[in-house]
């Protein structure tokens, strides 16, 4: 457990160190490059804004009406049997379908349950570790007019199920 926390803490500063050392050694204008890239970051954050507002409002309506809790209460006896935390199910279901919806849901879960709670960590891991299968397949195959995607969807969705189950096991083992 200590090892994972150490890796998590060290990986970003060490990467930063390597990048700066290498770039300085090559006499690159590091600061100017940083600023140039940073501008793209500002744009990205602003372009995310309407997506997040839309999704978070819609999810919050659903949660504050009590519908999510009622749904979770209904299915939790079944899921508890398999050791699956019921609160994560809405996110698990939406993750392969829509990236912005699941990002909104992850934010809302972190906001509601707290970032350092079990559910907050689980939502973070789940959101970070898999990609939106349907979106990726639509964009990529659509861009080159592929009509038959054969077993690609099967592979993508099965991988999502494995990823979701893995994230529950890993987060439970490491953060308990």
């Amino acid at each position, binding site marked *: 457990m200590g090892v994972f926390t150490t890796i998590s803490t060290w990986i970003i500063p060490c990467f930063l160190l390597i990048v700066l050392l290498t770039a300085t050694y090559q006499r690159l204008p590091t600061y100017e490059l940083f600023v140039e890239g940073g501008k793209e970051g500002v744009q990205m954050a602003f372009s995310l804004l309407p997506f997040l507002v839309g999704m978070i409002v819609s999810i919050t309506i659903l949660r*504050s009406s*009590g519908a999510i809790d009622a749904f979770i209460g209904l299915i939790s006896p079944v899921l508890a049997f398999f050791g699956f935390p019921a609160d994560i199910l809405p996110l698990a279901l939406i993750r392969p379908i829509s990236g912005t919806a699941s990002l909104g849901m992850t934010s809302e879960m*972190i906001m509601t349950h707290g970032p350092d709670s079990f559910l907050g960590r689980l939502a973070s891991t789940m959101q970070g570790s898999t*990609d939106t299968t349907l979106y990726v397949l639509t964009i*990529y195959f659509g861009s*080159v007019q592929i009509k038959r995607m054969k077993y690609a969807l099967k592979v993508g969705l099965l991988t999502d199920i494995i990823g979701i189950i893995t994230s529950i096991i890993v987060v439970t083992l490491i953060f308990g």
Partner: protein
Amino acid sequence: MVNIIWASMAIIGIIYAMFNGTMGEVNEAIIESAQSAVTLSLGLISVLVFWIGIMKIAEKANILKAIANLSKPMIRRLFPDIPKDDPVIGYIMSNVTANVFGLGNAATPMGLKAMKRMKELSKSATASRSMITFMALNTSGLTLIPTTVIAIRMQYGSVSPTEIVGTTIITTVISTMSAILLDRLFFHIDRMKNNRSK
């Protein structure tokens, strides 16, 4: 699909609130959550500016290229159908590396280029073996540094926003390996089926 999900979450919530007597909470939630979503998006600026700024330096210092080259032998094995020195190998490597560092915006254009070239190689409207393997890699995530998630955790006052990097890496590695295995498995099942029908 997104449109239906988005609208139905709100519709179900409002109708449920009518019968559940929670319309007051819903009404309040609409205004407050819009506010907190804006605060969240603005809070993301710090991490995104910093990370993308650093990645710009890494790109110019050819660090991403060096990392991509390390993966070359593996990429070759994963895509046996692609001619040995085809440019598509380069596109795939750039796409994978960008994904690993959580640069989704940089990954997509490279990925689309790779698809275009693979289509030129296959000349067919049916997905080729390499395309499906490539999609298996992309849909499984590949992300080792989940930048946006870290930023969201920071925004909501996490004691250790990056503590989920470790669990994310383990999960990504397992799901990516499963994606590759499943891709291989279904390829062979598919081929067996075709042989039988011939």
